[in-house]
């Protein structure tokens, strides 16, 4: 029960506005010391070292740096503006472009922090500049930055493959269609929303002296190609076997510097300033991870896991009832337990029942992955929300982000339900 109490205390403490990372760490400390004594914290250096050695996480600073350089050189802005203009009279062009760029980043990393923060840096300022509704802008970024979870390569799919004994390649393949449909759903939602509420996402102004539509398209393409090529180089380096997914983000960082050089914007001062910004954003992300590891340590060593296990061991219902209840349970647990914990601790509890009920493992895995992706977005503890807040300009408030993600969460839930009802359509059974 201590784990549950701790969770609610942290929830209330978050509201006072002290930095999130230290609320996690500090609350874990008081509850941990109360229940187990201070020596439990002798485990902290070990846990911290595991984060330090987790080279996959290097994608966070590397992508952030790429984003900051593209932002400082205004190349990102030009990319998004030009894409937005290509959509011509379509409202919400910037938001749609954001989803597409997010999908590309997602295809090269599975680290959510990396893409949310990079997208926040690249596209939030542009959308705000063109008077986009803050809520729509934030929701779009959080949702498309979190796509990295489901679009391969994806860490969650690798972990689930391991835990459930399914070849990773099978899961990667199975995730492509649901991922694509999710992207499609985001875009359709943006189109409908901006059609109904035009002032939320103004179409970009077309300059009269820009010449014919043909010339405009040509101009736009010229601005799109270099930064887009950079992102494609990042992806291409993985497919060509030049770099691992993590390393590809370093190619992105160096490539961004190269673009700056080509556009005569390179200076060592710019590199240093971008690096300092990168440090600030990265430290913000990792401080949360450090606080969260203390929090999950206190949660599990004070018996929180057993409580959860107990409630999950005996879910009633047939195949559909079991699936519904387990999805609901994962969604709720996702509010406050890390997705890695859920995969390793909760999934093995559910697995035997799933097997008995004859639920196809790949289907089950994709459902869980989609569901866990949602947990990154769910207020108040969804990490994507914190990450975006960490890089957002001052006029964006936590509440804007919370409100902004709600429609996207609903979309995700709708798609989870559709996978639940029509697995044949997704080729999952």
């Amino acid at each position: 029960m201590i784990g549950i109490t701790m969770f609610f205390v942290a929830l209330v403490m978050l509201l006072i506005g002290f930095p999130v990372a230290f609320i996690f760490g500090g609350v874990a400390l008081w509850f941990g010391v109360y229940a187990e004594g201070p020596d439990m914290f002798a485990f902290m250096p070990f846990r911290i070292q595991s984060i330090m050695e987790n080279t996959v996480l290097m994608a966070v600073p590397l992508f952030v740096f790429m984003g900051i350089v593209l932002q400082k050189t205004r190349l990102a802005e030009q990319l998004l503006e030009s894409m937005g203009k290509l959509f011509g009279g379509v409202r919400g062009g910037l938001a749609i472009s954001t989803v597409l760029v997010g999908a590309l980043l997602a295809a090269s990393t599975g680290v959510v922090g990396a893409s949310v923060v990079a997208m926040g840096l690249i596209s939030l300022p542009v959308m705000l500049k063109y008077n986009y509704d803050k809520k729509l802008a934030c929701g779009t970024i959080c949702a498309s930055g979190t796509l990295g979870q489901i679009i391969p390569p994806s860490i969650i799919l690798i972990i689930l493959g391991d835990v459930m004994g399914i070849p990773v390649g099978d899961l990667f393949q199975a995730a492509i269609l649901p991922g694509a449909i999710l992207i499609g759903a985001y875009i359709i939602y943006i189109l409908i929303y901006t059609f109904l509420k035009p002032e939320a996402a103004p179409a970009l102004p077309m300059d009269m002296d820009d010449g014919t539509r043909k010339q405009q398209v040509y101009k736009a393409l010229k601005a799109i190609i270099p930064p887009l090529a950079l992102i494609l180089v990042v992806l291409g380096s993985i497919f060509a076997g030049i770099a691992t997914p993590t390393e590809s983000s370093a190619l992105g960082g160096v490539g961004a510097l190269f673009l700056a050089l080509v556009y005569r914007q390179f200076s060592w001062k710019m590199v240093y300033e971008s690096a300092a910004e990168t440090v600030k954003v990265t430290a913000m992300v990792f401080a949360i991870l450090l606080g969260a590891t203390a929090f999950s340590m206190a949660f599990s060593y004070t018996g929180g896991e057993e409580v959860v296990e107990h409630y999950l061991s005996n879910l009633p219902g047939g195949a559909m009832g079991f699936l519904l209840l387990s999805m609901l349970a994962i969604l709720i647990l996702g509010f406050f337990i890390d997705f890695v914990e859920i995969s390793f601790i909760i999934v093995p509890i559910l697995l035997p029942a799933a097997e008995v009920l004859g639920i196809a493992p790949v289907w089950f895995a994709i459902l869980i992955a989609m569901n866990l992706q949602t947990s990154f977005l769910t207020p108040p503890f969804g990490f994507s929300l914190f990450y975006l807040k960490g890089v957002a300009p001052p006029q964006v408030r936590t509440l804007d982000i919370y409100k902004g993600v709600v429609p996207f969460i609903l979309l995700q839930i709708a798609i989870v339900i559709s996978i639940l009802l029509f697995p044949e359509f997704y080729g999952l059974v």
Partner: protein
Amino acid sequence: AAVLISPAQAAEKVYTLKLAETWPTNFGVFSEPARRMADLANKMSNGRLEIRIDTANKHKSAFGVFDMVRAGQYDMGHSASYYWKGKVPNTLYFTTMPFGMTATEQYGWFYYGGGMELMQKVYEPFNLMSFPGGNTGVQMGGWFQKEINSVEDLEGLKMRIPGFAGEVLAKLGANPTNIPPGELYTSLERRTIDALEWVGPSMDLRMGFHKIAPYYYTGWHEPGTELQFLVNKRSFDKLPADLQEILTTAMRVAAYDMTIQSYHESGQNWATMKAEFPNVEVKSFPPEVLAALRKANDELLAEHAANDELAKEILDSQAEYMGVVRQWTDIADRAYLNSFE
């Protein structure tokens, strides 16, 4: 008021030990020994010995087990000795060695050939005790994108193969490469690396390597990987003599049981793999390559022996034991197996 405890009550005192595993939750046969040992110890002691197991998912530090048991944060660990090579170089020799003993031979060395004494000699300065913890048997040599037909083919080969075996390969010009486990699949598929070594059929098939690499090479570098029970000496000394005996017996039985379970599962998985994925091409390195690897291995071991007295003592003991027992393996197992050809 003084509380009087009768001898019978004292005998009923429950001792609780905490054990940390290097493995994540549900890590196949690796997860068995600790659980079986805990269960046996509990039943044999009539509930007086209780062992609680934390997987790496709980303590989050797969390779911190040595330090955590040493410091007493955990009383016991289940891991493998060669993981501690960076901390205590001589721990390397108590898991398996390239071109070394088979599981059966090595158990003979441990329990009747002086191996246990040497292992204690290595661990004692760190306030630790180490016991065999179950054997995986021969591990496969790994998945390759290209065939290895000559020593030259090893030149520049980018392979994920950690530890001492990587050192042996590096001596022949190969490039041992660090790749995080989560990116192994993509890296091998896209040929960012040419080859990798993982565990054996069951774990390898879970990773799906058979779908992306054509060649599965037989083993040379881990002929009998022995896992390890680590015990904090102070925790052990606190136990009454009968519980100490129960604990050691439970560890020994659990290790034995994993060894046969692992053999059984490898057999099953191999059959499944052959049936379901007939396209996987199973290969062995040609004799020329194996000879070169052996030579590199011997040279490296000679260096180890020259640098450290205890290392020399261990390696000499292993070589001597193997020199004797291998003759018997040849006459017994090899001759018998040859009779089927």
